[in-house]
């Protein structure tokens, strides 16, 4: 079954073609940079307008790179939650139009579940179930227990900032470019990860929640001194070398993510651990989770970097599960800003 996946939940407009949930034929990511390059003009910052201009090209390009036409497509999967509703609407409208015009089955997909399903395209092979999955990106930091590929039970989530957002904001404090993930990772090379004494905060309760807001504030004061006024930070030289600040911050985030994920795996008694989301492209996180996970006896499934950041191949995989099970959504498919929240354990 060949599935066309479409995602416009935040900044990127993406389209992809995946066969049987395992074979990725094409995955196109149209960023605002891409739009800028093609039109050579100033691009509106807000995603919704950019999506409207981007999606026809993204879908055509995905079909072309896969060497197929709409005649070959068996179903359409589109992200309809969570995200910025005005942005989601663009992808959903496009998916509905194609499904209606071509009389194809249509299914809506949860973007977070899709990040987990990206693991089905990992080079080492798909995960086995049950498993524990960490989804960590600019907008989300959540741990799930998955009894099967289509059931997600929320174990815990960030109570304040997402890990990716902490990377972006610390990068800004240090005067490093956006997005913060790659710039912190690169600035951290050669830095001393023990230079700053940063908290590994654990929210109250016995759940698997995260908190990164205090870490951001701690970086500010440890890096710039206690008399620091936050507004002065960007552009000022920290009292500690930037490489050391970046390395210490990165280690603090990775420590918490790896520790909490493996605790969740132990708690649920699974043997497999999956990771997804833009922050899962971070080398330190990939290496540490792989090493520590393997040492604890878990099989760790990590998608290729380009399938960790936002993409529609993961949406096509996620949609394939629903389509293969005979599920269908109508042309009245709605968009939702927040994810489906399964009840936390206990």
């Amino acid at each position, binding site marked *: 079954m060949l599935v066309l996946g479409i995602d416009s939940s935040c900044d990127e407009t993406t389209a992809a073609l995946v066969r049987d949930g395992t074979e990725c034929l094409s995955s196109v990511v149209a960023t605002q940079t891409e739009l800028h390059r093609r039109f050579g003009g100033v691009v509106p910052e*807000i995603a919704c307008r950019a999506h409207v201009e981007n999606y026809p090209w993204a879908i055509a390009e995905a079909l072309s790179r896969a060497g197929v036409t709409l005649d070959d497509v068996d179903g359409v999967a589109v992200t309809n939650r969570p995200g910025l509703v005005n942005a989601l609407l663009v992808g959903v409208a496009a998916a509905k139009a194609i499904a209606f015009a071509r009389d194809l089955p249509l299914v809506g997909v949860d973007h977070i579940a899709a990040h987990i399903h990206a693991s089905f395209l990992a080079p080492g092979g798909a995960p086995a179930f049950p498993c524990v999955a960490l989804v960590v990106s600019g907008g989300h930091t959540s741990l799930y227990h998955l009894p099967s590929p289509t059931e997600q039970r929320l174990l815990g*989530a960030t109570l304040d*900032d997402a890990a990716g957002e902490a990377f972006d904001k610390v990068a800004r404090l240090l005067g490093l470019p956006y997005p913060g993930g790659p710039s912190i990772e690169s600035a951290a090379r050669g830095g001393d990860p023990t230079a700053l004494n940063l908290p590994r905060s654990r929210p109250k309760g016995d759940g698997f929640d995260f908190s990164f807001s205090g870490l951001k504030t701690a970086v500010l004061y440890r890096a710039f001194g206690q008399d620091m*006024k936050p*507004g002065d930070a960007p552009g000022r030289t920290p009292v500690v070398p930037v490489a050391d600040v970046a390395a210490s911050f990165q280690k603090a985030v990775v420590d918490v993510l790896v520790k909490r994920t493996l605790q969740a795996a132990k708690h649920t008694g699974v043997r497999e651990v999956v990771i997804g989301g833009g922050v899962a492209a971070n080398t330190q996180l990939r290496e540490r989770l792989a090493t520590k996970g393997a040492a604890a006896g878990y099989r760790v499934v990590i998608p290729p970097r380009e399938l960790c950041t936002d993409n529609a191949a993961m949406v096509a995989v996620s949609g394939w599960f629903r389509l293969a099970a005979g599920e269908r959504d109508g042309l009245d498919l709605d968009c939702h800003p927040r994810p489906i929240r399964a009840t936390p354990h206990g």
Partner: protein
Amino acid sequence: MRARSNGGAMSTSAARELTLAGPGATVVLGRELAAALAPATAGVLCLSGHLGAGKTTLVKGLAEGLGVAEAREVTSPTFLRVVRFEGSPSLVHVDAYRMSGPDDVVELGLDEDLAGGAVVALEWPEIVAAALPADRLEVALAHVDESARNVRISAHGAASSAWLDRLGELA
């Protein structure tokens, strides 16, 4: 929460200044702002302050106080820019950090919310200043040290002044 002084120097309306000992006190202030809203069912709360000042923490308390069922899910809206919690009243949590200017407010369909359709809590208001309604409560959070924050609440317009007065009666 402890009121240190009630300033009156501003040309607009009343203002209050408080010192918050830590994040817990910031949540309490959010709850009190929610309690002081009634009988009004809508209002615009602008939250300024640098990274880590406690803007999102205050909105968490506000959501709890308004009885938002998903109050625990109030997290930083920076990535999405707008997160809407339906209810009575509905709470719209906006973050202008990644917006380019006032036009984005219209692009995101926030004009109705800002015109009295919901309780709007808006972080980084200075980025979209021209799109903000004249009647609004401004909450400026400032770092004192790593945990303590100074907060200055000022009302602009009649409805917000009444909101601030009711907050004063609670404290």
